[in-house]
């Protein structure tokens, strides 16, 4: 078998590359970022981490020293295909690479919910606010609200506070009792992280409000104020609880969406997660997908955080080494002691978090007829309702084709799930598994120039 290609140089991709190299194998890491580390270890020119940098530097140093690992950073895969056991990837630098050994480690991105004004400049995703700060010290604003659901809101809030941003509040839409105990359920290090975030937030007197959400952002050309409100257990706005606050930016995050674009193009089987109904890559105990030689690790197989991604990357790397004949199964077993148990423990914890921080359907009470649902094509709730009720679109695909939602530059990465849930809600059904899978169907993963296309046609 040939050199393993790893798509994505985050925690999962890095740990897999190291395992393959330790087995004597070669690997090529392709990443769209200019530097390794993925979203979790995103950094600028001089990597500095407030905490948890040690694991990154250990992996980075080993990859740097290892001549068998090649890194192509700042490179995007714009098309992928799998035929007769061989995966082909077309890259935006005009080249193409092929291999019968591949790892998908494409990660995840913020899941967003719409509300009036979410398209105003100054409104960012929680991950986006964190990314621009980690990468270059840029601040999304001076006084901000952070809202949504999930434990990820805490590190983002703490990071912004430490960078000098006035965080006016962290709004957690779910009512979570014993947040700290909950996070501590997996191990002591998570407990320590959470305690650190709470300490930073308490020190800056940042209010953490459970059962609250941003239901509207307003401003002339950019965010100047937000409307926040208490929401019930189903996320519906509680009448009479609205407050208006001045601020110049907001960061919202509603968990994560696994990035399945490449996986879909490679034709690997996917599952619909039973708890949050996100589409995830189906893998076996060795992290191999339904296509022989194609493995997957990290968030694209189900969101579980950095510790899970590192373990899945190791399991995949070792399994790839066995498949390539680099090591024996006996060696593999020795190097895998405890990994499967640890993986299953963290996955259980991740599922518990997903249940607690679930998105409840009452969020649809925040939107009004003029609210933009598809940001790219500027499709409003009113327009989407029209194609459903007046034009008879009674499935997600037809509603998309008639309204153009999800057909803009981002190809439904942001609005795909939103539109699916709104369509289903209007009709009074649930989106089917295949409708949810269809959201990730993007034969051209990223736009390319006609010149690149012409060059690669030869």
């Amino acid at each position, binding site marked *: 078998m040939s050199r393993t290609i790893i798509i994505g140089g985050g925690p999962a991709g890095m740990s897999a590359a190291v395992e393959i190299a330790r087995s004597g194998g070669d690997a090529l890491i392709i990443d769209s970022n200019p530097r390794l580390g993925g979203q979790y270890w995103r950094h600028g020119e001089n990597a500095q981490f407030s905490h948890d940098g040690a694991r990154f530097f250990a992996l980075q140093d080993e990859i740097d020293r290892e001549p068998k690992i090649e890194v192509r950073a700042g490179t995007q895969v714009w098309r992928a295909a799998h035929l007769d056991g061989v995966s082909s990837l077309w890259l935006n630098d005009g080249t193409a690479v092929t291999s019968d050994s591949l790892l998908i480690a494409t990660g995840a991105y913020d899941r967003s919910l719409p509300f009036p004004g979410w398209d105003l400049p100054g409104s960012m995703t929680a991950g*986006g606010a964190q990314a621009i700060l980690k990468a270059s010290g*840029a601040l999304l604003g001076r006084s901000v609200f952070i809202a949504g659901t999930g434990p990820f809101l805490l590190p983002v809030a703490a990071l912004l506070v430490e960078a000098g941003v006035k965080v006016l509040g962290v709004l957690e839409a779910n009512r979570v009792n014993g947040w700290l105990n909950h996070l501590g359920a997996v191990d002591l290090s998570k407990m320590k992280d959470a305690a650190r975030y709470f300490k930073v937030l308490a020190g800056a007197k940042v209010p953490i409000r459970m059962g609250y959400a941003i239901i509207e952002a307003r401003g002339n050309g950019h965010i100047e104020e937000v409307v926040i409100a208490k929401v019930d257990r189903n996320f519906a706005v509680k009448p009479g609880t609205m407050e208006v606050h001045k601020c110049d930016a907001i960061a919202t995050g509603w968990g994560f969406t696994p990035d399945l674009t490449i996986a879909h193009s490679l034709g690997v089987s996917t599952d619909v997660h039973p708890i949050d109904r996100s589409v995830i890559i189906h893998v076996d105990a060795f992290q191999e997908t339904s296509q022989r030689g194609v493995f997957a690790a990290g968030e694209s197989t189900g969101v579980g955080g950095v510790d899970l991604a590192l373990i899945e990357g190791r399991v995949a790397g070792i399994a790839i080494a066995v498949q390539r004949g680099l090591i024996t199964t006996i060696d593999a077993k020795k190097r895998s002691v405890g990994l499967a148990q640890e993986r299953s423990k963290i996955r259980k914890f991740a599922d518990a978090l997903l249940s607690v921080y679930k998105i409840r359907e009452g969020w649809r009470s925040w939107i009004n007829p003029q609210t933009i649902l598809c940001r790219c094509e*500027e499709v409003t709730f009113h327009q989407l309702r029209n194609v459903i009720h007046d034009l008879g679109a009674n499935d997600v695909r037809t509603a998309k084709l008639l309204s153009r939602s999800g057909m803009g530059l981002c190809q439904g990465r942001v609005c795909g799930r939103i539109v699916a849930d709104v369509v289903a809600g209007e009709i009074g059904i649930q989106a089917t598994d295949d409708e949810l899978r269809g959201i990730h169907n993007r034969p051209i993963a990223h736009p390319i120039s006609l010149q690149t296309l012409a060059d690669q046609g030869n």
Partner: protein
Amino acid sequence: MKIYLNGVEIEATENESVGTFLLKRRQQVLRKTRFQDQPRGMFCGIGVCFDCVVTIDGVTNQRACITQLRSGMRIEVTS
């Protein structure tokens, strides 16, 4: 190094994305939308949402958040 923002020469540093560079200059608005002429800026910050697209060296629809600044780069924004 020097870059050009809407034709005006300005000083810039390397190892920075177009999006974060402009944000630090308080340029939150990067474009106006096609249909409703509404302002947009960086949203996802990681190349997923395509909301921060600007014209770079004559090429339209380039994501400011993932495009690294280069000396002599010509960036066009609408605000």
